[in-house]
Each structure stands twice: as structure tokens, then as C-alpha cells.
């Protein structure tokens, strides 16, 4: 079952970030402030483990960008499909896109 997708704008941003940082990964954050948003890191920067679920890969050109979420959070999300989009903003956390004045955002629909 496909659980994740991305908009054209997100794909363009990923191409730009890959050029600067190499292969990428996403981990969906929970909690306050900049939470409830997808965080983008260089692949391997964020250590996933047995408490995480691999939701799927975003495919941009020939590159696969894995999307992860904590397993506990996934229990509440499993009935929804996530599309990663981009909006103007001033992201935080340590997500790679923030200095560009944009922010990845999740849009959801029911599976």
C-alpha cells in the first residue's frame, strides 16, 4: 500500500537539497513547536531503530528518499496517506530546508 507521496514543489526542493547534501531521509516529528512536520536530514544522520516504521520511499528521478515515523505515532496515523509539500516559512529543528526560507509540510488524506 502506498502511504507517502510528494508534490512537484517538494520534488524540486529535494533535488536542490540532494545537490547540496547528498542522499536524504525524512523522519516525521511529533510534539510541540516545529513538531507534527516532516524533518529532512542527510541519509543516516538520524538513527532509526526498532521503534521506527519505514512508511515508504519518495522517488525523485532515480533517487529513493525513505520516510520514517516512530512506531507509536504510526499507530495513530496508519489510516492516513501523507503527501509531503512545501510552504514558505521559517522551519526549525535541524531540518535541511529551513535556511532556504521554506518548510516541508505534510498534507493528509484517508487511505
Amino acid at each position, binding site marked *: 500500500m502506498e502511504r507517502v507521496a510528494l508534490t512537484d514543489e517538494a520534488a524540486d526542493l529535494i533535488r536542490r537539497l540532494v545537490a547540496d547534501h547528498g542522499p536524504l531521509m525524512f523522519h516525521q516529528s511529533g510534539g510541540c*513547536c516545529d513538531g507534527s512536520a516532516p524533518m529532512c536530514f542527510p541519509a543516516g*544522520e538520524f538513527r532509526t531503530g526498532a521503534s521506527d516504521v519505514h512508511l515508504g520511499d519518495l522517488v525523485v528521478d532515480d533517487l529513493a528518499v525513505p520516510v520514517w515515523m516512530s512506531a*507509536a505515532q504510526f499507530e495513530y496515523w496508519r489510516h492516513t496517506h501523507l503527501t509531503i509539500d512545501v510552504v514558505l516559512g521559517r522551519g526549525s529543528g535541524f531540518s535541511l530546508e529551513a535556511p532556504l526560507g521554506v518548510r516541508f509540510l505534510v498534507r493528509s488524506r484517508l487511505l
Partner: protein
Amino acid sequence: MAKYAAPGQPGSLVTYRDRYDHFIGGDYVRPAKGEYFANPTPVTGEVFTEVARGTAEDVERALDAAHGASAAWGRTPVAQRANVLNEIADRIEDNLELLAVAETWENGKPIRETLAADLPLAVDHFRYFAGVIRAQEGGISQISDDLVAYHFQEPLGVVAQIIPWNFPLLMATWKLAPALAAGNAVVLKPAEQTPASIHVLMELIADLLPPGVVNVVNGFGVEAGKPLASSSRVAKVAFTGETTTGRLIMQYASENIIPVTLELGGKSPNVFFSDVAAHQDAFYDKALEGFTMFALNQGEVCTCPSRALIQSGIYDRFLSDATERTKAIRQGHPLDTDTMIGAQASNDQLEKILAYIDIGKREGARLVTGGERADLGGELSGGYYVTPTIFEGDNKMRIFQEEIFGPVVSVTRFDSYDDAMKIANDTLYGLGAGVWSRDGGVAYRAGRDIQAGRVWVNNYHAYPAHAAFGGYKNSGIGRENHRMMLDHYQQTKNLLVSYGQDAQGFF
């Protein structure tokens, strides 16, 4: 009503500078790479200053300054350190309106809140930690006739603090006051959404602090926060934010074997038992206000009571009354003293809230009121405003499980006490909770049964310095506020001293 003039306008109490550098070693220092980023006010969306875009080089420079200052500050007598904190408190109090205007312009929150809560609480927190550090005592344990264990508290040294954007000055104070009281030097990174108001404060208090004791490095998380959090030169990292970055900070800390304190948010239940509606009196009115607290600070509070659980017997009537109370919230210019709800702190925050309102509708939650972006007209049209929003639904829905960090409350009903506790605890988080009942026994038991670090009983959103604040479950590690916070910024030194003359007998 009164309306404060915006910073930089004629008659304003405060003018932001056109540009802010890093504050390092007691001076303003240009960023090593010479870059700055624009800082808009959420009130209008217009840029009002630019701020240094820090990088690893700037973090290293700040760490050099902090390491240069930490030993002397740590040896400074506690009475003297306490005096400095008291002087900082006095300086804030003397400039309270000025700082309130600066904070409102930076964050978008109504001036009513910055005047009545953010800044007065900051004053009190500095005074509180000035008091408790002087009252702190070590320990003496007599192990045997000739063997005595002395316990001393010592500063950690240089600590890193990463501050959130929802209460820029107050959250900086929550972290700075105990760290400084305990004798540490600090490198602090403000949120990139609210990087400037801290500099209005620093300019007011810089002369009170020895150079290097407090250093402020601005910049983006990935460029300045990460080098700070992953540095082998800090003895501790304190972070308020979200779970993924919290995990990343723990991961970096594990590489350096240092402690962290993390405050990572919540999805706080606010539980109303039937007896709150037993009388139409002041207490019922207080409970309705307690419901409406979800809109305080535009819902941008980690402990926002974003889930309301109402007992079946009073459900329809209470929700109807609470909805009327919510509709009475005055949304307007944040610098107007009558305004009760201001602007969300950033455009991406606005977009995220609207995306959650969308998924709430898709999941079948019923929109009771609000649920849209508010266009307040004129210069405010470019700002980030959301109408206070009430949803009715089921606790399994995502709007009941995820922190929206906006003025959105998700309401559901419960039948029995056990139902209430089951729903209240069906969450990944455990930061805050509210319990409302005229029955002291019920209120007490509920307060103990809810798995959260702070349970407000018959009140909500009070943050006194002398009450511990922090999370169970995914809401984080450690506490803030209260004297116990000193422990999070201190090492324990044990001196085990023998006063005997005889060999121990092993060799």
C-alpha cells in the same frame, strides 16, 4: 482600550535595530560568514530586522568565550550570583512595557499576555532562582565514627540551551535563570522564528553580566543548533521543541556522554466532570474559562489543553456554553490591549494548523466553530491569524493525537471516571492535563491517575516558578522550574573523608 505603537513607529516604547549580530563574550560580533537572515513580524508579515546567520565557526567562538568565563562565574559566591539575577529581574521590571511590546511584535501574541504573564513571570523566575541558590545546602553524612561523606553541588561548566519560539523571552528565562544561578556559563540559540527580542533584553542587561557568561548565537537549527548540540565542549544540552529533534539531540549527547533535558510537547487532556455544572456560579464560569484556555497564546503552548473531555450528563450544555465563551474571544491587533488572541508565530505554523483542520474534517470530526484563517484587514491582512476552533470527534482521530500548536481544541465525551482516565491517558504524551470537579476526592484521584508531569486541578495555564514542569512518556526528560531544576545544572561532588588514624586493613 489602548493600543501601543509598533516598534519603530512614532511614540513606540521600543525600536528594533536594523540588524543584530551574535552576542559573544559581552560584545556584538559579526557572523564569521557575514550572512544575515530576514526576520518578519507575524503581526503583519513584514520584515522588521535582520539577524546573524550563525554557523559552526560562530558557535566555536561563543564556546571559547563561555569556557573563558565559566570557571570564575562558577567560583563567584552565591550571594553575588544571586545579586546579578536580582538585578536582571529589576532591569526587566523597570523596562517591562518596552520588552512586552518587543515580544509581541516578535512573536505575534497579544500585548495583554506579554504584559500580564510573559514578562512578570520572567522577573519572578530570576528572583526565584536568586533566592533558592542562596538557600541550597550540600550534605554531610556520617558513615561511621571516623568517616564522613560531604556532598557539594558544583556547576556543570558550559551548557547549551536551545530556546523555542512560543515564549521567546520567558523560555530563555526558564533555562537561563537556573543555569546561571547554579554557576554555569551558557551558549544560547534562540529559535530562528523569534531571534530578535532576546537581543532587546541582552542590551538591557549586558552590563550586569561578566563577559562570556551568557552568549547568544543566532541562526538556523541545521547550521547553528546542530554544531552547538553536538559539540564535545558542552556539558549539557537543554532543548524545548519536538520529538524528532529531541531524539537527534539525545543521539548527539550519547556521542559525548552528556546529559540532556528535553521538553517535547504534549496533547493535554482537560477533563470536566459533571459536577462542575451543579451550580451556575463563579466556579462554573471558571471552568468555562478553563476550557477556553486552548486559545491562550494562540494555542502555541506545549501544554495547550487541546483535548477537552466532558462528562455525558453535562456534555451538550457545557459544550454550548463553552462555545459561546470561545466565540467571545476578541481577535485583533496584538498591540491592542483588548485583544485576546493574536497572530500565529510564522507562516509555516499557519499552514500546518490549516492542514490539521483539513484532516480533522476528512476524518469526520464535526466543526463546531472557527476552522479558518482570519483576515483582519488593513496591515494585518499579511499576518498569520486563525479563528479559535472547536472540533467534536473521537480520541482516535489525528486531531486528538497530534500537537497542532494552534487555537484548536478537540472535544469528546466520557461516561464514567474510568472512561475519562482511559481517554486522557490514550496519548503518546504526558506533559500537562486539567481536571475540573467540585469533589476533592475525584479531582485528587484523577490528578494522580493521569500520566502527566503537570496536572492543573480546577485551574489551568498557571506557571509559577515554584512548581515543577516537565513530561511523562514522549513529552521529554527532566523538569524545569522549581528548586529541583538546580540539580539539572549541577554535578554532585562527594568528598569521602577519613578522620581515623588506622590502616583500612586490606594490605
